[in-house]
Every structure is written in structure tokens, then in C-alpha cells.
């Protein structure tokens, strides 16, 4: 770090009344001043992140972005750290195909019987997932993760060994 950058940091670090430094951070591309250390909850409040959204800290290089827990865990911020919020899985919508008809449902965990009701499959029928290597009949009481682009079909619960 050259002397110019050092001087700039000195100018932008502000000491709060509680003796904490303040740094400039960015949440959803908006600049905010935040004390450091701070907490996840304080960051959510600072940018008024809705309860169905999750905050992530942007990582550099090959590292994965880290979710910020909405709790009292201490976080150490650095000047110009970047954060972004995303809708939680429960709020995301995915497009699936059921019996060759396009449907839009929320992403994530589904009780199979609830998914059948949501996409209009008769409760008496079996919902099956069309996977690349097999057709998988889904138990009504099972839970599955639904992802964008997945294909399903329904068929009658028929047939018996004889």
C-alpha cells in the first residue's frame, strides 16, 4: 500500500462515540457508513433488508460469496466491502414442466402431495420425476427439492403383480 492510499484510509475511517471505527461499505450497490466491528443483524437493519431476503458478502477470486447470518455474530468490516441481498429460496420462482405443461412454482423444498395440489395433479395419481436416466415415482409423503427446468409427469396408480 502506498502512502497515498494510507492517507486516504485515515481520512475515511471515522471513530464513533463508542470507540468503534466506521467504514464505508456497499450493500446492493448503495454506499453506507457502518461501525466495525458490527453484527449481521445491524447490517440487515442498516440497509433495511426484508425478512425474506438474505445478505451475502462478496468474495474475491475463486472463493464463494459468504452468507451473512441475521444474528449477533460479530463481523469485522473493511473499507469498501461489498454486500448484496438475494431473495431467499422460499421467495424464488422456478419453471417446471408437468405433463408437458409449463408451471411456475416456488423453488426449494416441497412435500410431494403439496406440489401435486399446486400444479393441479389429481391426488389419486402418482407424480413421477423424469430424470436423465430414469423415471422416479415420488411418494406423496416425501420431500423433494424443486429446481428450475425439472420435468414431471403424472400417471395412474395402476398395476399389480400376478
Amino acid at each position: 500500500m502506498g502512502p497515498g492510499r494510507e492517507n486516504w484510509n485515515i481520512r475515511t475511517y471515522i471513530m464513533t462515540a463508542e470507540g468503534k471505527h466506521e467504514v464505508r461499505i456497499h450493500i446492493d450497490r448503495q454506499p453506507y457508513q457502518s461501525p466495525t466491528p458490527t453484527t449481521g443483524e445491524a447490517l440487515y437493519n442498516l440497509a433495511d433488508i426484508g425478512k425474506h431476503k438474505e445478505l451475502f458478502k462478496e468474495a474475491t477470486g475463486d472463493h464463494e460469496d459468504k452468507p451473512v447470518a441475521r444474528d449477533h455474530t460479530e463481523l469485522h468490516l473493511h473499507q469498501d466491502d461489498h454486500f448484496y441481498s438475494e431473495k431467499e429460496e422460499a421467495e424464488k420462482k422456478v419453471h417446471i414442466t408437468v405433463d408437458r405443461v409449463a408451471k411456475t412454482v416456488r423453488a426449494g423444498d416441497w412435500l410431494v402431495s403439496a406440489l401435486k395440489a399446486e400444479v393441479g395433479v389429481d391426488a389419486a395419481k402418482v407424480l413421477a420425476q423424469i430424470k436423465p436416466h430414469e423415471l422416479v415415482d415420488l411418494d406423496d409423503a416425501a420431500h423433494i427439492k424443486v429446481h428450475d427446468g425439472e420435468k414431471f409427469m403424472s400417471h395412474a396408480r395402476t398395476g399389480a403383480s400376478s
Partner: protein
Amino acid sequence: MSQEQNDAALLEPIADLCDGQVSFKTEGWRRLILMEGLRFKAGPRQCTMDGLLCLNHDNTTYPTKLYLTENVGCGLNWNESPYLLGRQWHTFSWSNVSQDQSPFAILAAHLAPLSKGSPS
């Protein structure tokens, strides 16, 4: 929709489960769908083999049949090895899968006991 387009629409979902071609065939009174490289599970075993779906078997208890090139066990009663379309097939006794549904639904109903079974 022409007959050709209707046939293609019926076969398209089955083609999702096959490596090769899927086509309607007939032999005598039988209306058949030949499925080349049908992918399915027989218990824990991943299988790929040709299959033949009969949409109008002449038996009221067994109105439809699935024939495979191999007996994959699964605790089912494999009791018939007919010669159809110039080759030998094997089938298990699986009753009451109605003709009154799409070919894909018929196929799914016949594949279900294989995926749940244990291979011999």
C-alpha cells in the same frame, strides 16, 4: 393436428427416456411402441436396453404389456418370452394397466414395479 403430429406428440415424452429411436410398430393385432435404449432402474441397477410397449394386449387382465430384451428380476413373475418384430423379448406379469391413458403413462405404470424391486 395430423395423425403424424399426434403420434410424434405421444412418442416425444417417451423419447426423453431413450438413447435411441422411439417408433410405433404393428405386428398382427398388436399396436406396439419400440423404444431403443430405454433407460430405467431395476432396483438399484441402472439399465439401458430396448423395450417394447404393447398398447392393446388381447387380455382384459393384462390390457397392456412391457417387453424387455432381458429378464431383470426384481421379484416379479417373468412368465412369457414372446417373439415379436423378429426378436425374443421377456415380460413380467403386471396386471390392470389400462389402455385408456397416454403411452407414457402406460410405460410409467409398468416401470414402477421395476424401480421398487430388487434385482435377481
